[in-house]
Structure formats: C-alpha cells, structure tokens
C-alpha cells in the first residue's frame, strides 16, 4: 500500500525531458534584443552572451540528472544545479531591465519552470534526515520569490501594480525607521497590550464565574454569538471613545480576544477529570486548593491554545482597526495610505513586517505551549 | 496419480497434496523481513503451505509468530521479501484485482455514515453493479447472518457482535471464493463469540468456501477448522500442521467431547513445542 511513487517518477522524467528539449531550443533562438544606436533591434544569441553559458550548462546538467532515478546526493546535486541555472538566467539583460527579451529567453524561463517543479518534487521525496521536512516548502517558497522577481522585471509589469522583491527589500531598508515606528505603534502597543489585556480579562472573568453556573449559562451563548460578529466594525466606535491613537485599536483587540479566552478557560477548568476531582475531594481539599493544584494546571493547555488563537486575532484586529479608524501611524495605516498613493513597494514591505510578526509570535507561543503543556496529549503526540 | 509428498514443513502426518486446480492458496517458501534500526526482524521465514479449495484453515500461535503477517501477505496487504505466493494460481495482487477474496478485519470497519444495508452494498458498488442489484444481493447476505431487520440501522446502533456479523456479510456479498479473517471475534465477549463461532461454522458447512482464519484461541481454532497450522515466533515459521478428525457438521456441544479435547491438547503441545 504505497503512494504512487512510480507515477511521480515518470512525471519527473517527462518534465526533465521537456526541460532538456527547451534548453536545447533556447540555445538556438535569440535570447536578447538589444536597442542599437540607430533604433534598430539586434538579436543576441547564446554564443554572444558568456554569462548565459554557465546557466544553460547547469540547466542541462540538472535536467539530465532528472532523467535518472537518483537518491539523496543526486537530488541535492540537481537542486544545486537548478539554482545555479536560475541565478545565471537572472543576470541576463531582460531580467535586469536593460534590454528586450527574445524567444530564447522565454524558452529558458520555461525550462527553469520545469527544473523548479523537478527540484521541488525531488525535495519532497527525500526523507530520513532531520531537515528533510523543511526542504520542500523552503524550495517552493524560494522558487516563488525567484519567479516573482524574474517575471515581474522581464514582463515589465508596472511597478505600481506589483513591484519585484528586490524593490520591496530596498523599501524595507530605506524606510526602516518609518516601519519601525509603525511596528512599535501597532504591535508593541495596540497588539501586545490589547492581547495581554483582553486575555487576562477573559481569564479573570472565567475564574470569577467558575462557581456560578447560572452566569456561565447566560454568558456562553453571548460569547459564541460574538464570534460571528465582525468585531472590527467596532473600530469607529472605539475611535470615538478613545481617540485616534493606539488605545482605540487596543480596545478593539481587547474585545476580540476577551471571548475566546473566556470560553477556553471555562472549558479548561471543566476539563479536569472526574477521577482527579474525586481524588482531591478525598483529600478534603477546599475549592481554592483544588483550583490551584488541579483545575488551573489542567486548564493551561486550553489557555495557551487560546493565547495562540488570540495572537493572530490581535494582529488582524489591530491592523484592520487601523483601516477603519484613521490613525496617524501604524502598520495598518501605512498599508492603506501607501496603497492609496500607489506606493506598492512600501506596502509590501509593511505587509512583510506584519507577516513576519505574526509567524514569529505564533512560533514563540508554540514554544511556550510545549513547555507549559508538555503533558497534554495534543502536545505530547507531536 | 496424487503425490503423497507434500511441501509442508511439518514432520507429522501430512495430507495428500491436492491437484493444482483445487489449490486455493500456495505459499512457496515465502519470507518477510522488516528492516529495523538495530537488526532486521524476520517476521516470516521460508513458509511452505498449500491450502485446498473448501478447506477451513486456522493459523494459530503466540503474538509475533507471523500469522497475521502471513494472512496479509496472501491478501496483498504486505509485500514478501522472498519466495512466492499464489492465490488461485496468480499473484496476490492479481487475485486482489480480480476480487478473489473477502477480508474481515479485527474491527468491523463499517462506515458510520452508511446504513447497515448500504455498508454491505459497498464492495458491490465499487465493483460497478447497479443499485437495485446490489441492494437485492446485500439484503440476501444480511439475511444469511440473520440481521435482516437491522438493515436500516446505523452501525453505532448495533452491538459489537452484530457489527462484526455485518462485516462478515459484507465480505461475502460478492461471493468470493476465499474468505480471510484476522481474529474477527477477538474483541468480543466469550458468549457472543461462541454464538458467532457456531454461525460461522454453519455458514462454512453450507457454502464450503475456502477460509483462512487467524486466531489465538485454541478452542476456536479446533472448533472451526479442517486443518490447524501452528506457528511460532522469532523467526515466524510453521511448527506443525494438524489435520482435524472432527466431522464437518459441528455444534457447540462438541467442545466437551474427548475427541475435541484430544485435538486441543495436540495443538497446545505444538504451541509449547514451538516455544523452545
């Protein structure tokens, strides 16, 4: 009962064959059209462009390797050669926006596409070593960024539509101070304080009403209701009450994170098993002691789980609240105003900052979860 | 004429070798080796066994003796590392694609979103029969295991024993020549188990399909089978093949007869022999 590895291998071989053919054809077609002084266009072939030789050779070698079923070393060699070919092709004038692209250039691009598919497939087929799981998504991501850079420049996509990654990196670098200020405004103030405040409030209320089943039965339906309400709609109201600056965004975040934490904490407090509670009862342990020694520790996995969910909600809430609520700085503000000004590179840079923040925060919380809730089956079985 | 020599590894009295047309399963020196971190595990070593059509074979032995592995090899659920296995004269894979056998797992494995009747219809639907025909056939087989009035119920509404009966009806619904069962009654209580044993025995007696049955219960093996294959672990191998002297038609009271106890004793001895 195995996965269709034979069909995978056959598909890979066909791709390699096609790539091989494309490279061969690219060698024969004009790669670049240069503008001459008198306005005419002169074709340049592979023979005229020494930098391209390495690329084509590497590409042919990679495609050749793809034809044979190979193990780890062969796959790595193929990946390395494909990367070499890709980088080489990036140096050609069309990819540097200094000349027009010829048919040969595009054939090479197609061949690189085939090599990309092949290398990702080979990367995904590897297993046994520790880093293998991360290889395929990493390769995939890198190829996507490469394709973005190559195609946006070579196809002469207007910068106001989609800037190439190189430009985004440049924007990140040159506007670092500005983005840093936005980061502090949104993340360190609105997100962090709102997330901490909302979660703490939710936790406290949950513990407070733990002994009031009446209140619980009244509040829980309302809590589940709020999960369907677009709570970011509260942003204009928050602005009215708390002003334009970060407190109003933090207020929105508090509202968004309160209910998930409330629900999760209550569920966690209930999760202590009946047998364990009967054990504490047999020790004549009071409510407080039982809460401290049994029910709160039992609730930790749920609480940390809600903290993870709340982190994502908080980031989204703060950024979107800035869309709605007209502040003067912040990541959401930066994104919406620079988008209106068609300053796309800066917008992407701000998005990159937000995305990185989100994934880093989540990764940190996963670490926390492993330390605090290491005993829980959902964390253990990883 | 028939060759009294057999390929069974047992040194005891062996049955006459049936002509090839009547051989349901032939295991010719099969081995299964699992690669492991420190040392490879020899799950099966050079197994030689021939099963004739219409026989009820039990594979019995302690855990790790390879009985389930052998069954799964015959069913094309696991590959062999060496030797050859033939089912109805072709490879296990071809036999599986030709739908030559029905398999009953340790758990009922019924789909909870299908009614009992729909569950029995499942293999028929996969084989492409139209809905009405499939329903009629399924209904008939459900009747043969005595569960007609439950056809509209859902699996979770039935007891464990009833679910397993549905599973058996499903395995037989497309009338395979061979039925393979992997400790099908292991999860049930003894009383239910006895009832199901009797039903299965009567079903076999009526229909005379080839049955390969894995169990670790001595009395179950002796009660049900025409031949008992005793296996032992490390490495998995056949220790003894015991021919049953009991009549074809059996009832539960048979288990208290001296004949039965003699067979059970023989099996028990073979099992402890294999331990050394």
């Amino acid at each position, binding site marked *: 009962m195995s996965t269709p590895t034979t069909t995978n291998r056959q598909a890979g071989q066909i791709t390699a064959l096609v790539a091989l053919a494309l490279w061969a054809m690219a060698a024969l077609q004009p790669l670049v059209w240069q503008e001459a002084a008198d306005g005419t266009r002169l074709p340049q072939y592979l023979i005229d462009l020494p930098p391209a030789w390495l690329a084509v050779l590497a590409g042919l070698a990679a495609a050749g390797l793809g034809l044979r079923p190979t193990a780890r070393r062969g796959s790595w060699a193929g990946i390395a050669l494909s990367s070499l070919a890709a980088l080489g092709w990036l140096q050609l004038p069309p990819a540097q926006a200094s000349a027009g692209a010829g048919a040969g250039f595009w054939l090479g691009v197609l061949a690189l596409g085939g090599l990309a598919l092949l290398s990702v497939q080979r990367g995904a087929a590897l297993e046994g070593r520790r880093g293998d799981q991360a290889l395929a*998504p990493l390769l995939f991501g890198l190829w996507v960024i490469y394709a973005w850079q190559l195609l946006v420049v070579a196809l002469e996509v207007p910068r106001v539509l989609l800037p190439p990654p190189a430009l985004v990196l440049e924007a990140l670098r040159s506007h670092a101070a500005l983005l840093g200020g936005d980061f502090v405004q949104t993340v360190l103030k609105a997100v962090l304080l709102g997330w901490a405040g909302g979660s703490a409030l939710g936790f406290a209320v949950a513990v407070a009403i733990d002994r009031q089943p*009446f209140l619980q039965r009244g509040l829980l339906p309302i809590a589940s209701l709020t999960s369907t*309400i677009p709570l970011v709609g509260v942003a204009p*109201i928050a602005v009215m009450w708390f002003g334009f600056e970060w407190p109003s965004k933090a207020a929105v975040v508090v509202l968004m994170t309160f209910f998930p934490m409330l629900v999760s904490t209550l569920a966690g407090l209930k999760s202590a098993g009946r047998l364990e509670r009967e054990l504490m009862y047999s020790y004549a342990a009071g409510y407080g002691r039982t809460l401290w020694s049994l029910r709160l520790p039992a609730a930790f996995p749920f609480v940390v789980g809600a903290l993870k969910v709340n982190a994502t909600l908080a980031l989204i809430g703060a950024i979107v609240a800035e869309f709605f609520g007209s502040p003067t700085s912040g990541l959401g503000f930066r994104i919406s105003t620079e988008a209106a000004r068609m300053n796309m590179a800066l917008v992407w840079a701000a998005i990159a900052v937000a995305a990185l923040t*989100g*994934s880093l925060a989540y990764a940190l919380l996963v670490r926390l979860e492993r330390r605090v809730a290491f005993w829980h089956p959902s964390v253990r079985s990883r | 004429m028939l060759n009294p020599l057999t390929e069974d590894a047992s040194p005891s009295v062996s049955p006459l070798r049936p002509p090839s047309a009547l051989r349901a399963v032939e295991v010719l020196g099969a081995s299964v080796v699992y690669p492991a971190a420190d040392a490879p595990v020899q799950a099966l070593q050079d197994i030689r066994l021939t099963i004739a059509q219409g026989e009820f074979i039990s594979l019995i032995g302690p855990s790790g003796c390879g009985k389930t592995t052998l069954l799964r090899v015959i069913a094309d*659920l696991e590959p062999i590392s060496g030797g050859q296995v033939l089912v109805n004269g072709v490879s296990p894979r071809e036999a599986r694609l030709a739908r030559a056998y*029905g398999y009953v797992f340790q*758990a009922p494995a019924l789909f909870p979103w299908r009614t009992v009747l729909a569950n029995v219809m499942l293999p028929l639907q996969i*084989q492409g029969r139209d809905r009405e025909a499939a329903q009629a056939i399924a209904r008939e087989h459900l009747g043969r295991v005595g569960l007609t009035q439950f056809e509209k119920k859902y699996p979770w509404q039935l007891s464990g024993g009833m679910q397993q009966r549905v599973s058996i009806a499903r395995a037989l619904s497309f009338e395979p020549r061979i039925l393979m069962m992997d400790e099908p009654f292991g999860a049930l209580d003894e009383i239910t188990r006895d009832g199901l044993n009797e039903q299965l025995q009567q079903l076999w007696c009526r229909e005379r399909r080839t049955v390969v049955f894995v169990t670790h219960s001595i009395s179950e093996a002796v009660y049900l089978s025409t031949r008992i294959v005793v296996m032992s672990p490390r490495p998995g191998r056949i220790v003894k093949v015991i021919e049953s002297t009991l009549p074809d038609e059996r009832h539960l009271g048979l288990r208290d007869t001296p004949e039965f106890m003699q067979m059970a004793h023989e099996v028990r001895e073979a099992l402890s022999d294999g331990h050394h």
Partner: protein
Amino acid sequence: MDTIDPRSDPKSGGRLLPLTATVLVIVLLWYALTVWLNGPGAIERVLAPKGPWSWQDLVLSSWTLQRPVLPAPHQIAADFWSSLVDWPIDSPRNLLFHVAVTGQSTLLGFAMGTALGAVLAVLIVHSRTLDRALLPWVVASQTIPVLAIAPIVLVILGSLGFSGVLPKAVIAMYLCFFPVAVAAVQGLRSPQRIETELMHTYAASAWQTLWLLRLPAAWPFIFPALRVGVAAGLVGAMVAELPTGAQAGLGSRLLTGSYYGNTVQIWSALLMASLLGLLLSSAMAALEKWALRHRSRT
C-alpha cells in the same frame, strides 16, 4: 471551607432563564452607562442653555441625545427600524440595500473560497509533492494577517479593470480558503488505516476511495470550518468596501457614520452586520446538523 463535591456535578439546566437574565442585566447596565457617557455632552448642549436642570432631565436627555457618545438601545432600535421601513429597499438609506451588497460579495467569495479550498485539499492528499511543499505554507498563512493584503488586492484588481462585486468577493474568497483547506485536508486524512486497507482489498480506485470513504469522513471536519469561513468572509467583504470610497455595503456604512459623527448610524450598521453574521453562521450550523444527522453523537 466549602469543598467541591464532585458527586454533585451541575448538569446544564435551563438555558433560557440565565440567558434572558443576563441580557436584561446587560441592557440595564447599558442604560446606566449611557447616562454616564452622554451626561457631559447633554449638560453642555441641551440642559445648560435651558437653565436649571434635575436628575430626571439629565437621564432623559442622555437617552435622547443627538450624536450621543453611547446611543441608548431604543435609539439604535428606532434608527434600525426606520431605516428598514421608511425607505424603499433599493435606496442607500435602507440597511437592507447594504446587506444585499455586502451579502453578495460574502456569499460569492465564500463559494469560491470553499471550492478552491476543497480542490486544493484533494490535490494535497493525493500528491506527496504538494503535501510537503504547499501544505506548510497554507497552515502558516493562518498565523499571518492575510486581511492586511486587502488594499493591495483591491488596487491591483482595480487597475486591471475589475470593479464592483468581484474584488470584494476575491478578498472574502482568500479569507475563507485557508480554514476550509486546512480542515478539508485533516478530514480527508481522517480515515483510519483499517478503513483504507478495506478499500484496498476491494481493489477500489483512488477516485472511488475519495468518493466513498475520504469525503464522507471529511464532512465533520469541513462543516465547522465553513462556519468560521463564512464569518471570516463577511469581515473580508466589509473591509473590502473601505478603499472604494465608501459607496455601498455595511462596511462603508460604518465608515460614513464615523466620518459624519453619526453614532447611531454606526451602531445600527453594526447591529445589522451582526445579524447578517449570525444568519450566515446559523445557516451553516443548520446545514451541518442536517448533513450529519445520521452520525453518532461522539
């Protein structure tokens, strides 16, 4: 010290009484809060010019103030009701008009996102390459604020000539896509080994295994994700209405309300958005209940 007797586990008794009691308390607190928040404004704008005032005057004017800081529940209800009945349905003054606009984008985006997510999930489950290379990105994208990309998407689609429902639906689409895709992958992989081996013994094709085993097994995972997805799609549709100059839709109504300081309008728009969200989620929940009606309660 009282002990928690585990023998007396509180069973969930009636829900109606606690719920109505809680709602009642919330409404009462609301009215009290209104006086506190609107009081200064009321004093300054309504009462003081008229001369001496009493507590009743304060309370009353707090509850009927124009441009209040916190509208009283009856003010919201009145504005809500009037917007529904006083204007024809296709007028921008009628909230139902905005519901139609936002609802359209939400449902279209939701349908597209669900379809895309389901297709991708099927591909991921059947291809090792996609599983290893693409799935981690889909899972990771749940931790990044995907909604932040909305302005870019709108600008790009706008300059490509797309306007109207489609850009908003696209944003709703990719918000629905991620939870549905992840849940579908989980669900399609949920059958246990014994069940997939059973299909193997039937020599079932990959397509038959998908249709007869994996898909039915996946529904209990997909439906909760549909509920999350439709709510996310609604938020996306509302956010998408902002950059287009606040013309139509519940999101734009919220924005115009805040531009003109019309608090009551904001609140009634928010109320309508909540009701819409509730309606969509309940529809999904009802669908789930119907589709899984024969399954056991485990």
